[in-house]
């Protein structure tokens, strides 16, 4: 599926988390780019087209949800997944942004790799 699908963006201030997500994504045959901050992520989106984005909720510069809003402005259809240890699945904030369509899915840390694989299979765009 690699040829057809656009690379996936991973944004997390923890290099280890980026390493993990990158490995899971690459195992599915997709390409991946990582960013340690929202600023870095915004720079990457300027020169790259992404088929999906995994965002950490708490980034050093701006919040993951804030970054999601910025990404939405330029890419209304980008599937955005929040991967966070700060929120929990039925967290009112998460339920709210899911309903509003700001994010596509939420995965709580720690996670089973299957959860990541299943959101990729389900939402990743070409």
């Amino acid at each position, binding site marked *: 599926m690699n040829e057809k699908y656009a690379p996936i963006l991973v944004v997390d201030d*923890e290099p*280890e*988390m980026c*390493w*993990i997500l990158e*490995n*899971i994504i690459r195992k599915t045959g997709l390409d991946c780019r990582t960013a340690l901050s929202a600023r870095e992520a915004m720079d990457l989106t300027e020169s790259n087209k992404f088929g999906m984005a995994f965002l950490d*909720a*708490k980034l*050093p*510069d*701006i919040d993951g949800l804030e970054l999601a809003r910025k990404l939405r402005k330029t890419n209304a259809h980008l599937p955005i997944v929040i991967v*966070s*240890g*700060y929120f929990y699945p039925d967290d009112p904030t998460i339920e709210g942004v899911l309903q509003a369509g700001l994010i596509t899915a939420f995965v*709580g*840390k*720690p*996670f*089973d*790799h299957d959860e990541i694989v299943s959101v990729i299979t389900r939402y990743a765009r070409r």
Partner: protein
Amino acid sequence: MGDKTLKATGRDLSGRYKRLYTMLLDAIPSSVLLIDQNMRIVSANRNFLEKGQRTLANTIGYRLEEVFPTIILDQMDITKRIRQVIENNQPAKGERMTYRAPGVPIRIYYYSILPFTCQGQVEGAVLLMEDVTEQVRLSEEVRRVERHLGSVVESASDLVLSTDKKGRILTWNAAAEMLSGYPAAEAREHDFIDFCTDEDRKDIREIFSRIDTRKYARQMKEFSLRTKQATFIPVSWVFSPLKDSSNQTAGVVAVGRDLTERRKFETELHQSQKFAALGVMAGGIAHEIRNPLAICSSSAQFLMEEDGTPEFRRECAEKIHKGIQRTSAIIENLLKYSHPSTTTRTTLVNLASLIKETLTLVTYHANILKIDMKTSFPREPIMVQGVATLLQQVFMNLFLNAINAMPTGGRLRIDVKMDQPEVRVQVTDTGCGISPREIGKIFDPFYTTSIVGQGTGLGLSLCYSIVKQHRGTIEAESVEGRGSVFTVTLPARFG
């Protein structure tokens, strides 16, 4: 002529003396009786006749038992005593006698019997009776008032004691006996200072030395009381000068209240405050723990797959190991902080390390709110005498307050400086600030600007009481909309 005058003068003098003695005898407020060897009354003064409601006619020449009621004579054995005085020619002194005559109120006499001699021969005895009814009544009244005052002091649940000007214990009430385990008699062999800790002695000497000055007429201070079992009880003391009748300071009155119960309550309050702080930080803590957990979990999942290269598998194992160490360190910090501490014993505390440890705990919370933290510590270790867990709570409260004042990020600066003989800790935030109207109330208990359910309003009042307990100060300066600076000063210790 001179001879005649002398004689006439002599006669006049003798008559005058007799009149003078009769007058004196009748004027003195005592009863005087002259009794002969046969126990007959030879002479009785006016006072006696009036007190006994008698006349000279039914008194002179009568026997003692005809004049005194039998009950008195039997009870007091006056006849026998008079006989002994006459026989031995020795006075009997200082006896008390209660006289009840029909129709007259009870009288109390103090009586003495003196032998009456003439030319070396004992002719009779003089019975001198002083009416002491009123004195006895007054002294009983005085004793009653004294007993009442005594029982007030004795019944007080507070320690009430007095010392001389040098601090020697004079009185020691029942509460002091009970709390200290020292009976009053034993306490009186000691100075007040003997019941205190070595560290408090300097302050106590100062209090006693200036008790005489008007400015320090009422000094309040907390000192531990050393008990007989060698334990220490926290006591809040008030020292006042003990004034004598000429308004001169004769000693010191010390009234003390046992603070054990209050300390227990405060400990519980501190503990609940800690949990409240942990609640505030829960999100940050969860985030901080779940990140390494996620790394461990994922690395383990990679290991479970068969296809990894040996290098990749080794990397996974290393990440698991590191993740567990990281999580464990966070949990250790939390445990240290939340561990209930009942001790109020002070130790030498390294303030810089304590502040750094506390900062580690709030970092999780601060990071999430995008608060930039800057610290500056002096190179040399900063030591203070104190209770480490209490001091940690002061800084935890100050840091959390500062962080909560910056919900959309900002800068938190912590400056620790030596300012001999004090150490000064400044916590500066760039948050919402405190209005001039509110700044005067921030150290009051239950005063809060937090939304209901988010703050207890006890944080700063606890900081205040803890810092005061450590003989330090806490001050706040703030510009609304710009931020606040909280300054804590504590006495520095060396060595």
